[in-house]
């Protein structure tokens, strides 16, 4: 018999495999329907060009994007890592407070406080504005 712990992940792996197989099967069915001429498949040059408001495509397709997305992504990485540290702290908060008292609370306040300083700096610098 497999270990009970890994068995649970095994079920999730099976589920994931079927969850990927279902949309793939739907696409295959659609493709097979086009093979037996039930669904139309007549691509033409105009039809398979890129949509652009009704006239021919004029711009570079992978066009430039705003630098702001980078700064948002950087901020996200920072605070997401912070949240990752918050999770185990929150789960064991009651247990650890019994042992260490108010230190558990103050420690996390300092940690969040340092990051909050960075957050205020980013706000003041205008990284959170969008206009």
């Amino acid at each position, binding site marked *: 018999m497999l270990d009970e712990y890994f068995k649970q992940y095994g*079920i999730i792996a099976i589920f994931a495999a079927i969850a990927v197989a279902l949309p793939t099967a739907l696409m295959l069915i659609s493709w097979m329907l086009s093979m037996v001429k039930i669904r139309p498949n007549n691509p033409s040059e105009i039809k398979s060009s890129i949509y652009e408001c009704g006239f021919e495509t004029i711009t570079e397709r*992978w066009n430039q994007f705003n630098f702001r997305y980078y700064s948002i992504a950087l901020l996200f990485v920072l605070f997401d890592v912070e949240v990752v540290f918050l999770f185990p702290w929150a789960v064991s908060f009651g247990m650890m407070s019994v042992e260490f008292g108010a230190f558990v609370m103050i420690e996390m306040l300092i940690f969040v406080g340092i990051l909050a300083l960075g957050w205020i700096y980013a706000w003041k610098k205008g990284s959170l504005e969008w206009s």
Partner: protein
Amino acid sequence: MYTSFYQLIDFHSFYDMYYKIFESLGLSSSASWMSYLAAGGSLSFLAINLLVLATAFYTWFERRTIARFQVRRGPNRNGPFGLGQPFADVIKLIMKEDTIPTEADKPVFTIAPIALLAPTLLIITVIPIDDASFLATLNIGILFIVGITSVNSIAIFMAGWGSRNKYAILGSMRGAAMLISYEIPMALGITSVLLISGSLAMTEIVAKQDIWFIVVMPMGFFVFMAAATAEMSRTPFDQIEAESELGSGYNTEFSGIKFAILFLAEFMAPIVTSAVVTTLFLGGSQGFDFLPGQAWFVLKMFVVIFILLWIRSTWPRLRIDQIMGFAWKILMELGFVNIFLIAIEVAVLMDPVTGLLTSQDLLIMAAINWVFTILTLVFLANLLGKRNYDRPDPVPSPLANMQPKGEK
């Protein structure tokens, strides 16, 4: 009777059934893992198909309800009450031509719908519909959900990037920025739950809710719900596919079955989200005895789905700067303040020896948190609502005949 029916659709009963079948076929040496695979596979297949069917009926429900909100009738021609409408839609979408732009990045373009649907489906594996999970009982259930929802932003970006369309890429850029921004407040809302539950397992979180967590921490519920609504990227937050600005956003180039899969994922999101909200804040399968736990779970899910629909049909679309500002400036503050408020309450009220909370402690916390929530929301509404905008009076165009008659 209910319990016997539920035990029928259970991993262990499936496992036993397949084990007997494989043993009778003379495969007793490998019957253990073969029946494990077969039971997991058939149960997963059942769950996925149920979810897809539920989504089909949900699209009908959503269209009918929104029609009522807008004083229309909605689809009512196919079948009784228009119940055949989702199936007609599916047949139409399968029969449609599936065009792929010649300049598109074909592998990415094809994988994107799968990458959007699979994570949405995977969330349902760890939801405890009754005392135990339907499929897998992970001891890190909620962490699994937080991890798996992050994949959605990649899938949406794949859809936009692969189709090589400027509207699609604008929509998916906005979408990726919005989804990652709202992941942080969502995780903060979950953290406030974890402070009381003391466990990452979904079943433990449900078991700890002597008082439902929506009562204990309304602010956590507000933060989580706002962030989850944004994660679904539906109407108040639908910058991803803002029809009036971006063509159709990230799914501009998608047609036929790929479009159907994208929208299956999109309409499945409210169902899955309401299941998560029910587990975290509404006490999961808890309820009175005259109905079984699963029925209570579905009932609560339905209420949450209706509230999400209500939000969708009431609010207009927000601008992208409003959305990002709301996530980074307001929800994050509220989330952190809420976490530390609850942490202080837990530290003060808990049993100094065992570190546990009684339901009386939870009620005291609820009283403090409700006062805090109402005061904060009133303060915020005054702060944001009474801002003076510099709006000049509209000047009528000389071309428009706007003056009243006789006044010249």
